[in-house]
């Protein structure tokens, strides 16, 4: 499913270049769950952005589902994210002008959605029910708790039936009880939807619950 080879990423800044990732490799099969851990600033989010085609590597290749996403044009990358990826961010980034249901439906706006609006909405309702938000459909983000926001973000990440879900510190702003709940939710979704799950986290408890754990240190990926 995921085959990363010799991936490097260097940021050019005035005065000096900063190499964040240095020739790292990563392989995951479809349906795998993996955690990427490492100290702050080690490049975890950078790796996640590269895997999500949000950024371009300086060198190396990223094969996902047999496609080299590093060679995608902007349009191809956008289409790939829209059809095949689900993102969950620490800050959730729910759009404040939209209610919960609409936030989940946002990916439809990309334009070449492959199913009807009614079908997508029906699935959104199912997803929101499955994350326990069926009673908050028409609430706006500012009316939700941190856990509820995250669950809404999870539902949004799954609306496109993604092959790969990328979660960047999903529990970073939650209390321990909520963290466990979210971990349960993510693993249940992986189980129910069959999507590959990669979680970038500092939380070792979450990491341990994933099938594989990688450590990013000194620009290199190690393990499992």
């Amino acid at each position, binding site marked *: 499913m995921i085959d990363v080879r010799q991936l490097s990423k260097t940021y050019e800044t005035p005065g000096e270049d900063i190499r964040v990732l240095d020739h790292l490799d990563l392989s995951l099969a479809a349906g795998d769950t993996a955690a990427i851990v490492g100290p702050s600033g080690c490049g975890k989010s950078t790796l996640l952005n590269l895997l999500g085609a949000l950024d371009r590597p300086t060198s190396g290749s990223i094969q996902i589902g047999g496609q080299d996403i590093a060679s995608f044009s902007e349009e191809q990358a956008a289409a790939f994210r829209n059809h095949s990826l689900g993102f969950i961010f620490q800050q959730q980034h729910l759009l404040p002008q939209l209610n919960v249901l609409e936030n989940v439906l946002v990916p439809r*706006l990309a334009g070449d959605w492959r199913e009807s609006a009614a079908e997508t909405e029906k699935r959104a309702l199912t997803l929101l029910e499955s994350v326990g938000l069926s009673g908050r459909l028409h609430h706006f983000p500012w009316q939700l708790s941190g856990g509820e926001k995250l669950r809404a973000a999870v539902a949004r990440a799954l609306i*496109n039936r993604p092959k790969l879900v990328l979660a960047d510190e999903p529990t970073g702003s939650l209390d321990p009880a909520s963290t466990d709940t979210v971990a349960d939710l993510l693993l249940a979704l992986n189980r129910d939807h069959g999507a590959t799950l990669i979680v970038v986290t500092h939380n070792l408890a979450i990491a341990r619950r994933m099938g594989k754990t990688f450590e990013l240190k000194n620009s290199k990926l190690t393990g499992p």
Partner: protein
Amino acid sequence: MTASAFILRGLRHYRSAYCGVLSGSALGSMVLLGALFAGDSVKSTLREITEQRTGRATVVLAGGENFFRARLADDFSGTAPVLQLRSQVDTPSGRSTGQVNLFGVTPEFWKFAPGNTTPPALDKRSWAINRELARTLDLSPGDTLVIRLGKPGLASRDAPLSGEPEELITLRGTVAGIRDDDAMGRFNLEATQLPAPGIFLPIETLAAAIERPDSANLLLFKESLSADEATARIRKSAQLADYGLFLMDIPLSRATEIRTDRIFIPTRIEEKLRSLLPESRPVLTYLANTIAANGKETPYSMVTGADPAAVSFLPDDLAPDQIVLNSWEADDLSARPGDAVTLRYFILGNGNQLVEESSAFRVHSIVPLEGAAADKLWMPDFPGIAEADNSADWTSGLPLDLSRIREKDETYWDDHRGTPKAFITHDAARAMWSNRWGNATSIRISSGQIPVPELERKILETLTPADAGLLIRDLAAESRSAASSPVDIAGLFLSMSFFLILAAVALTAMLFRFNVEQRNHESGLLAALGITAEKILRWRLLEGLVVVTTGSTLGALLAFAYTRGLLLFLETIWNRGDDRMFRFHAAPSSIVGGIIGFMLLMMATIWLVTRRQAKRSASLRLETGSEEVHRSGKFRGRWIASVAAAIGVVALLGSKMIGAQGAFFLAGFSFLIAGLALFRVAGASCSSPSQERLAPPLTTARLARLNIARRPARSLVVVGSLASGLFLVISVTAFQKHGGGDWQDRSSGTGGFAFWVETTTAVHRSSAKDSSADMLNLGDQREKLGDVLPFRLGTGDDASCFNLNSVARPRLLATATATLGNRGSFTIQSTAEGIAPSWQSLREGDPEVLRAFIDETTLMWVLKKKPGDRIDYTDEQGNTFPLEIAGTLAGSVFQGSFIVDEQRFLERYPSIGGYRLFLADSPGDLAETRGILQRALTDLGATVTTTSERLAAFNSVENTYISIFNVLGGLGVILGAAGLGIVTARNLSERRNEFTQLHRIGISRGIIRSMVVRETRQYIHWAIGIGLVSAMISILPALPQTGLLVTVGWIAALAVMFLLTAASCAWLAYRKSALFPATLAKAG
């Protein structure tokens, strides 16, 4: 959930943030559309006024001081004769005004009204007046008014033997009605938007009053005719009287004479008739003050010059230096053939003064006083002489000493009237007495050579109206041309609003960008969810389009009120009280074009400032949020600053070539750009890491600098807006004119003259013999004045800045330019190539070309020409001649007119008689002298103004425009200051966490406040520095023309005002922010 629903949600959610964008769009749109509407309104008003001014008249036959038969109009349908004169009008209550147009009209005249109107019932004592006269003298129907006008002479009153100076006629009547502007109340052939006071009375009444029954000097045509067609029709119907000619049978000489009621036959007519009738001979009879011989003299005798071949009693061999006396005269002088005879006579000298000259002759022979030699018809009907019963009763207009007339002279007058006492050749007579009106008093042709009807027919076939000074004017074409203002008001206001629009657009775009930056996380998320960057940008732009469209539409609505305000302010130039001069008009093309144009401008700017956001990667947006990200490319600030400064320097150096105004704008703008580029460079160098040296110590000042550099784009917009506004206000203020106070300085715009006196009735010459010239006949009061310089008012329209109409041919003012030269009056600013900067140059050069000086303001703004250019004028006979713009005068009282030399002028306009304008010097108290002048010149319908007032009035026009400029610039400053406030508030809001953290780690509120204050202060300092320096450099070319102290004072005051405004806005933002002590304490 559709894209449009998503956009609408965004608009609704971020409505408070979009309020600023909406307001900025509304302001920019209002100002831009206001400028266009102001242009539309002025154009529309001028068009409307022009229609009212000329009515349905398409062509006019204009005679000026030359009259034709009113009944000439009977031969054409759709025409109206008008007798137009000027008068003074008084009311029983003591109010009075001069320069009133008197229109003698027929009922046909009212059919020329642009709309349907009912002709007023006019009679000998009931007259209609127009609104302007009613306003000026506060007249209502039924009120009494008194007209006083100078009776026009048969011949020009300038001419010798034309009779006494103008006799004043008084008419008393009542106001029958007040004619509205669109009911011919505004009728006026002068191209001006200002209404002239006017009275309408029956043409018969006015013609009878001036003792010229059946006369008119205007013939209006309604039909669309070319000038040639009109000329052809008039020639077909014209009679000799229309050319001022008549035939007289001279039985004693068995001859017919062609004579004119203007005394002297115009040269052009004489030439044409001599060419038509080769056998005809000119005759010139003149008054000799003295015929002297043998120690004896005869006073005041007629002498005739004629061709000896055409006069039976004259010897064929009469030489030009020989004279034939009649027997009475020979007896009186005891003269014999061969005796020397001296003739003394008056001729016209400078300033229209009569100068006595003399010529010597030798007696050829003596003819008996009988037959043709005793014919009284040799003498034309000299006004004041021909009808006199006694010699002692002559009112010839000449300064005669009638006490010289002896008993025998009276007897001769009784018996022989004006029978000449001596005869000379016509050549000799012409050499002595020809003048600008002609060389002959009649043209004689022997009876029998041609029957009288045939002679009349031939003459009429030969002459054209122009020969008699009757000019055809294509009024329709003139009106079309005049209806356009020489100043493009829309363009003017647009240029005046340039910086304000720029500031509005920049600040609006900055606010929009704030909004986009604020939603960076949203954009990043959308990108992460697979929505392309282009689509996200499109959505943002669509949101912007909705806001900008709403704002622009709102601005268009506000522009209706804004334009009315602008027009009201503009009207203060003419000081017409409650009368509204301009009518508001907004052309659909301006509304649509203006809104679309502004929206395009806004959207292009918004696109420019947001497209870079779209290029940023989703991950970057997600990470940075609203923090501004520096461009990775190298900013070429130093290069931009150098190029812009170089352009500015070149513009200043070339200010003479491209004109001070253009140089000012270009140089100022260039220095502004250079300053802003330097500001950007300073920021970039401050924030870039240095490898070579240690970072400077971290002080609050450095922190403030770093924070400014942290968001270079918004810093640039704020400093740019503030600096632009400041630049505009200061630099334009420096162009305000403060002239007029130094009127005694002869090189100033007053020429060293204290008064500008305009009279309704022309003054022809001093009654005194000498030319210390009590031209204004002030008598004992003459000593109150120094030099008095008279001017003749020629053809053309007022082209001063008070006249909004387009004037192709400014009014000609003719004077003795030598006097101006001798006095050293006025400053000749520039001259055409090869022309010396002296008044003498107006009397030199090609005699076919009339040279003129003109005020530089008129040349630049109204005529849009340069020295050396030529303008075609039409002389009195309808011939076109070139007027060469020889040079310009600096800021003078002559704004709107060409100054030409009197002699050169009279060669082309011999009939224009008398002086109606005087510049007078005064050694005494101006207020007292003005009062004396005003009272003494009441009969002339004089208006006395000081030259300082006149200059101040001209300056006030420019200053009004500058004031508008300043108001708009001031708005720019306020906008810049508001921008500073917004940016301060925004920065503080975005850095709330930063400040809280600083507070938590023990940095005192005082230090944090000091850092914020320093940041704001740096914005203001940069803005003041850039704005001030660029403005000061750019006004260098204009400084010599403006009061330096006044200018510096203004600049200092403006800078302080600016500083206070900007600081207040920032303080307000600071108070609202989380940093305000109370708020911060709460946060802590």
